[in-house]
């Protein structure tokens, strides 16, 4: 049930773009995205609910395709501060889950000057 994130790691130069994907084998109700810097707590970025909406946060946006059970995180014109590990957390589309998330293993993003 754990979602699969790809790529596992990516190295960018400042100003370059990146896409991080999160795929599930189960029908999804929502997808959460978090960023974690080394030695720190994960920090919430955005939530996407089923309906195919797209959200944005500064130069970071995301989409959610419920038919494909997939979400993608788009980082444009990357900055040094974007470095960290990005996690998607998925909530299944069935009752009783209480909104619990199952997290992927993460994508390590490194932005170089």
């Amino acid at each position, binding site marked *: 049930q754990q979602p699969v994130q790809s790529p596992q790691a990516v190295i960018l130069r400042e100003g370059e773009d990146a896409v991080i994907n999160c795929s599930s084998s189960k029908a999804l109700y929502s997808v*959460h995205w978090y960023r974690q810097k080394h030695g720190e707590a994960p*920090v*919430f970025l955005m939530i996407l609910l089923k309906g195919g909406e797209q959200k944005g946060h500064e130069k970071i946006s995301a989409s959610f395709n419920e038919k494909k059970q997939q979400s993608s995180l788009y980082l444009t014109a990357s900055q040094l501060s974007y470095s960290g590990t990005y996690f998607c957390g998925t909530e299944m589309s069935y009752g009783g889950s*209480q*909104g619990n998330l199952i*997290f992927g293993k993460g994508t390590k993003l490194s932005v170089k000057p």
Partner: protein
Amino acid sequence: DAGITQSPRHKVTETGTPVTLRCHQTENHRYMYWYRQDPGHGLRLIHYSYGVKDTDKGEVSDGYSVSRSKTEDFLLTLESATSSQTSVYFCAISESNNQPQHFGDGTRLSIL
């Protein structure tokens, strides 16, 4: 930042000893969660609470118990610690399901 305090921040203990980790929040959020984070596994849910005295198991609950006697406090107990429970433990809170989860700074637990 959400008012979440985890204690202790670091702990080293021996196999077989009981360990209790505390999560304290000042946000009056209904939901509280305990995760463990290990290299190569991401964040895995241990237990969660959806109200005072209302708790349930997550995906990796074996060897752990929890209690929530007050809205602001969520305790995680390792009844008899094992080396496989060496990990970084994060507490998180949210107002309700489908709301953002806000994480505490984590507790690094080493069991020798």
